[in-house]
């Protein structure tokens, strides 16, 4: 028995051959996770059903306004995106074309202390794969650590074992942000004279290939110059509300090379954009 376990440990540590076993067993324990998560969900549902009419009305109003503002922003974004694709086409560069998302809900379970790993209710049956980036409305949340048939485990960017390649949005300075175990990221590999100040937005740099480029990750919170050490001590607060989110987006992104476009030809329009246009016209 001991021998068997040691073999199991060794095999699991080195390869992913045991994923099947894990998937089968995970189906067995999934009901337990659901059971744990149920009371929280029920209480939230109950709260939603007793919210007063006026609250709902104000919230609706607020959301409508926000939607209006966002769609105006989107108008400009669309033009910029097309321009970007066109320019990249001139450079023969690759660009993320379609990005598909899936909304998943977090199950309220707590696997182990000291690790920032959450379980979500969508798994490989929905096509979720390992290492997929996970976002919420504000920024990067983390990546899929393990996709199981009915659920998957998502490692948050604040996990001590997680590192994400980022760049400063203001000047393109690249670095790596490492989770701290608290609701904070650390940038331990920037020299003391790096051009970074509190308030700088960190976005994904797209290096490493796991995360798509250009999504907000965190805002620099504190820069401490350490004259006696080679690197400055820099911390950043994640943009995504990691401790409060209930729903998150699992993203499929394909980096496809854009075919070389000659300056005179019209760029192809994506179906998504056409839909957005249509909705604006009907408004």
């Amino acid at each position, binding site marked *: *028995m001991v021998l068997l*376990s040691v*073999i199991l440990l060794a095999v*699991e540590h080195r390869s992913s051959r*045991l994923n099947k076993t894990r998937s089968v*067993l995970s189906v067995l*324990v999934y009901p*337990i996770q659901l059971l744990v998560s149920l009371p929280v969900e029920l209480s939230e549902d109950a709260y939603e059903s007793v919210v007063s009419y006026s609250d709902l009305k104000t919230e609706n109003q607020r959301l409508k306004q926000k939607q209006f503002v966002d769609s105006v922003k989107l108008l400009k974004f669309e033009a910029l995106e097309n321009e970007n694709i066109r320019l990249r086409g001139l450079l023969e560069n690759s660009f993320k074309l379609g990005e598909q998302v899936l909304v998943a809900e977090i199950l309220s379970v*707590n*696997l182990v202390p000291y690790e920032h790993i959450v379980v979500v209710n969508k798994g490989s049956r929905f096509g979720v794969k390992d290492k997929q980036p996970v976002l919420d409305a504000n920024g990067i949340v983390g990546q899929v650590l393990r996709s199981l048939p009915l659920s998957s485990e998502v490692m948050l960017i604040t996990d001590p074992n997680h590192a994400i390649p980022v760049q400063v949005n203001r000047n393109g300075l690249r670095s790596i942000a490492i989770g701290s175990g608290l609701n904070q990221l650390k940038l331990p590999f920037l020299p003391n004279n790096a051009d970074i100040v509190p308030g700088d937005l960190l976005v994904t740099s797209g290096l490493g290939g796991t995360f798509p480029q250009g999504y907000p990750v965190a805002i620099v919170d504190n820069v401490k110059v350490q004259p006696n050490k080679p690197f400055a001590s820099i911390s950043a607060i994640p943009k995504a509300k990691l401790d409060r989110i209930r729903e998150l987006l699992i993203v499929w992104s394909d980096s496809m090379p854009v075919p070389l476009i000659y300056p005179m030809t019209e760029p192809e329009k994506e179906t998504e954009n056409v839909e957005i246009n249509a909705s604006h016209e009907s408004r």
Partner: protein
Amino acid sequence: MQATSQDRISGYWLTVMLAMVLSILPFPAVIDMFNPDWVLLALIYWTLAMPEKIGIFNAWMLGLLVDVLTGRVLGLHALDYALISYACIKSHKRLRQHPVPQQSIFVFFFLLFSQMFIFWIENIQGNIDLIFSFWFPVFTGTLFWPLTYFALRSIRIMGRQN
């Protein structure tokens, strides 16, 4: 006789499921640091109570389920629980004679060994910091042992009476 043993086994599974639920309940972070290994506590009780039913293989399977449940490397808890249950089965005759406070001392060492073992394996994987609060579950687990003991015993006696 047949029905009785069935009841006792179902009591075992029920309590073990409950222990699994307890171990992944989303407590606030402060309490979570102290959350003991409920499954191991339940396992220790049942192996002491009926070592002829709950063997090492049973413990091993249970450990595997816990590994999947908590997303650890497969075989970590399996090996851990198998070793602990082996020790329990070996010493069940002596341990049963002890009063509960004295049992707690043994349970403390079982839990300590388990936690040390988990630390050791995870350290080989290279993803853990040894901080003092890592040992808190051992102490809380020991404190909860009398409670576990009496709760599970009442369940077992209930199962026997039915």
